[in-house]
Each structure stands twice: as structure tokens, then as C-alpha cells.
């Protein structure tokens, strides 16, 4: 997945030829090292996201509120196919939601807004390479998803005694990062279909809310009719949730990697990448004049 993301950056970087330099002796690209420039970009993107009250609520607070509500409703009943405690079910389920909110929803909204308000175009007018802008924003999304997931994990542990098996910590970490990267790519793809900042929030919610309901995020999957389960299996949300549920399952022994689910996520990332590369635009489409 990381490799795929790196490839995305390389391809995007190569979409703008940068050979005809006016100073043939000058090295191409800006002064600072390339990787440190991504961190530089991510640092300021992160500041921007953290200072946005609405974004903060939807990405970081709402999953926590849902956790409290769902555990409150189901108490200590056992739920889900693995018959685990409600809290043990909902911590990974809402971690999936947090990953999607931080990567997909927040990224679609901010990228659309930045495209429509000229921010992306202004950055494009500077020497910063395309992949730095795109990669910095994706890194921001991954950091936010990871942070919110950690908060859920800690709250689950402290408030509800949800134990994450030590052996599956690498699996959980990889799933969160891979899921976050996948939903970043999908976010870039979906942002190309949204024409205005105002419609970004409703569109992302219209996509994600039904998927949360049928993908085991809000309601355990087996309580759904078979055809809904089949529909859910097509989309990436159920696979992210399933991989996280599996890793949190106390009966699991071993590393807990769900390669089949991660494979489906990778396939979705590839689709998103193809769409994003074909359609991504740096500026609002204006009438020629």
C-alpha cells in the first residue's frame, strides 16, 4: 500500500515535465530536501485541520461519541459473529469510522474547498512539486486517523476494559495506515466529482452513512439480511472494519493480519488511483476567457 502511494506520487510528479530549466546549472526543485518538504507541508496542513472546529468535531469527536452511545445501548451484551462484548466490538468498528472520517471525509472536504478557493492553484504556482502537496495532505490524514484511532483504543481500554491482544498490535497499526492511505486515494478520486465546497460534506456523508450501517461499523454484520451483506462486501468499508474486528478479537491467536481484506482495500486504492490520476485538477474549472 505504501509502495502504491509512493508510486502515485511519482506518477503525479512526472505529469508535469520539468526539464526546460531557465538555469541549466540549477538543480531542479526547491531548496529543502524532498522528504523534509513533505513533512513541512504536512505540518502546516495539520495545523489547518486541527484549527477547523467543524472538521475537528466530525473527525475526532464524533467517533468517540458513537462509541459511548453504542456501548451505552448494548451494554455488556455479546454482539457480532465472534460474540464479543459490545465494547470490544465497537472500539474497532468505530476505529474504522475514525480512519474514514480523518482520511476520506475530511480530505474530500478540504481538497475540494482548496481547489475551489484557489489555494491549490496558488501552491501550484510555486516550485513545490505536485507530489509534495498531495503527499503532505495524505500524510496529514494518516496522522489524524492514527491519532483518533489511538484515542479510541485508549478510551476503550480505560473506560471499558477492551484489551487489544499484544500480538495483533502490528496488524492493527498496518490496517489503520493501509486503510487510511486507501481512503486518502479514494478521497482524491471522489473530490474530482464534487463541484463545490458546500456539496462536499453532504456527498461524503451520503456515501459513507449507508456504508457504516451495512458494513459492521454501527450494526454487527450478521444481523443484516444476506443481500445487504453481499452489497457491503463489495465496498472497502466492510473490509477495513472486518480487518480491525479480527485484530481486536480476543479469541484470535497470532498476528491477526487479514490479508484478504487488505487485498480488497488495495484493489480499491488502485481504482481510486486510476480515477484520481485521470481527473485530478488543481483549479476550479472556469469558462475560457
Amino acid at each position: 500500500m505504501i509502495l502504491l502511494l509512493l508510486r502515485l506520487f511519482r506518477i503525479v510528479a512526472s505529469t508535469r515535465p520539468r526539464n526546460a530549466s531557465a538555469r541549466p546549472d540549477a538543480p531542479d526543485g526547491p531548496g529543502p530536501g524532498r522528504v523534509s518538504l513533505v513533512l513541512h507541508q504536512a505540518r502546516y496542513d495539520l495545523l489547518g485541520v486541527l484549527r477547523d472546529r467543524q472538521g475537528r468535531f466530525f473527525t475526532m469527536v464524533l467517533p468517540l461519541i458513537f462509541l459511548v452511545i453504542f456501548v451505552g445501548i448494548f451494554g455488556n451484551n455479546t454482539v457480532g459473529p465472534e460474540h464479543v462484548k459490545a465494547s470490544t466490538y465497537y472500539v474497532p468498528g468505530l476505529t474504522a469510522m475514525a480512519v474514514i472520517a480523518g482520511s476520506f471525509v475530511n480530505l474530500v472536504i478540504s481538497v475540494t474547498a482548496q481547489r475551489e478557493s484557489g489555494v491549490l492553484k496558488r501552491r501550484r504556482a510555486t516550485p513545490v512539486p505536485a507530489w509534495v502537496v498531495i503527499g503532505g495532505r495524505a500524510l496529514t490524514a494518516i496522522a489524524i486517523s492514527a491519532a483518533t484511532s489511538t484515542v479510541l483504543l485508549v478510551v476503550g481500554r480505560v473506560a471499558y476494559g477492551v484489551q487489544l491482544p499484544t500480538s495483533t498490535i502490528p496488524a492493527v497499526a498496518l490496517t489503520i495506515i493501509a486503510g487510511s492511505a486507501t481512503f486518502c486515494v479514494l478521497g482524491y478520486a471522489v473530490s474530482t466529482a464534487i463541484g463545490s465546497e458546500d456539496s462536499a460534506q453532504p456527498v461524503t456523508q451520503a456515501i459513507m452513512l449507508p456504508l457504516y450501517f451495512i458494513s459492521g461499523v454501527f450494526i454487527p454484520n450478521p444481523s443484516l439480511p444476506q443481500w445487504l451483506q453481499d452489497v457491503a462486501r463489495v465496498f472497502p468499508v466492510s473490509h477495513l472494519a472486518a480487518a480491525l474486528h479480527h485484530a481486536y478479537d480476543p479469541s484470535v491467536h497470532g498476528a491477526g493480519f487479514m490479508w484478504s481484506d487488505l487485498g480488497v482495500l488495495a484493489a480499491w486504492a488502485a481504482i481510486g488511483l486510476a480515477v484520481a490520476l485521470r481527473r485530478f485538477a488543481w483549479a476550479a474549472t472556469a469558462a475560457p476567457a
Partner: protein
Amino acid sequence: MTTISETLSATPVRAGQPAGGEEPVIAVRGLRKRYADLEAVRGVDLEVRRGEIFAFLGPNGAGKTTVVEILEGFRERTEGDVTVLGADPARAGGAWRDRVGVVLQESSPEPGLTVRECLELYAGYYRAPRPIDETIALVGLSGKADTPGEALSGGQRRRLDVALALVGDPELIFLDEPTTGFDPSARRAAWDVVTGLRDLGKTVFLTTHYMDEAEHLADRIAVIVDGEIVATGTPASLGGRDRMPASIRFTPPAGAGALPASLRPLAETDANGALTLRSDAPLAHVQMLAEWACAGGFDLSDLDVRRPTLEEVYLSLTTADRKDRS
């Protein structure tokens, strides 16, 4: 603005920049741009020299934005040669962008960042950025350095845009309608900033709808109408302005009698009884008027001798051209 002159005196022109007189900063020859069903730019030639402020004027839909975006490297051209700072903007990369600053017609501040943070972000993009506080002072935003960009007024946002375009210390700056929507004092402040850019040795490519702005700032002007350049020149000479007749306007007092015979064919009377002479020889004609008034024992207290304004020249260029075509 004292801040500007102070900052400028502390900042000499970047060493190694050759003086004027050599290869132009922007050279455009035979530029054409066709969209599906319309040719927006139809054979444009332009030349912008180092260190000058060049104003590019034209009505909406005349092809102005298309030309500017081609020069900025945002649009591909259909035909023609375009060289900006020695490179083709359509193929130029990071090293070229390092030398060019762009102030877009519309762009919001970076979301969530203060003025200083916006500049820190952009300074990181460039190889040799200007000092941040000095750049903020240059656009007169020192008092707002820690204010969120989104909390600035319209005029302050524009100045932040200029600061973001300047922080990389570019040689060439594109300013696309930099003062649209400004109140008169904000416009004056912005003009000071632009004049300051010339003093720094920068080349400025400016588009504007305001003729007073072009007149105040520009060394040279080009006017584009329907995709073609219809006039190029200094503000004083554009469209033959320096050779156009002057207007001599006055209200003859009651009982002044008839005008001197040689002036009569030049005169037009308006509804208020004021006379306007279209004069190719204003000094001689004013002298004749003076002799006429002295002889009659009266004065012409509202006498006004005026060159055609840049706005009048512009309107005649843009409307005349349109009439020819329709």
C-alpha cells in the same frame, strides 16, 4: 508608506541580476489559443523588459486571462512562441517557478493559518526565500502577522497574496487584478507596494480594469480586444494619445460676442452653454482665446485645457474595434 521605503532601502536589488536592455523577460510571438468553437487569442505579440511594470488591459472575454495563464504556465497554447525568463512556461519546472511569483485573481488564505504561518509555508517551497517578517512589512501587514488569514479584510487578503508571491524573491511577478474591490485608500496602499516592487528591480506583469491604476503604475501598456493586441505604448502615448486633440472647455459670459473666426469650426456647445474646442494646437488656440477675452474685457473663469484621459483612449480603442468586427 514608511514601512516600504524603509524595507526597500535595507534590501538592495538581488546581486547578479543584469540591468535592463538585454533579452526581454517575456517575449511572445504569434500566440494563438483555440478552444473547441472559439479562437480566444488570435496572434498576439508582446515584449516585457526587465524591471518594468507592464499593464495588460482589455474587456472581459477579450482573451486577457487566457494570455496571462499561458504566460504563467497554467494553460497550453495552440500556436506561437512564448518565452518567459528564458524558458517556455508550458514546459518549465521548479527552477523556473522559483523565479516567478503569481498573484491569482482569486485565492483564499491558507485555511487555518496566520499570516506569518502562511508565509512560513510558502517560504519552504523556495530555494532562497526572503526573510518572512521583512516580506510581511513590505506589504504593510506587520500588525496582522499573527492574525488568521481568514480573518483579514479583502484588501489585507490581497496584500497577503502579494506577500506569498514575493516570499520566494522572484524576478517576475504576475498581478492579476490586484485591487479589484478595494476602497480608494486600500488601492493607494497597494499601489505603493507595486511601485516598491519596481524599486526592488522586479518585473511586474499587471492586469487591471482601472485606467487610473494603469496610468499610475505602468511603464508600458498593451490593450487586447477580441484576442488581438490593438495598441501598445506608454500611458502617455497609448493609442496615439499624445497626438490626439486636446479639449479646451469654457463658458463664455453673456454678451461675449462671437468666437474668433478660426476657432468657430472647432467648437461644440453643450446644453449648459459651455463650449468645447477640439484643438490640435492648444497653446495657440488658448492665446487666441485670451486675446479675444481681453479685447472684450471679460475673463473665462472656468477655462479648462485637458488631454484625453487614458480611459477615453481605452474606450475608443475597445469600442471602435468591436464595431469594426460586428
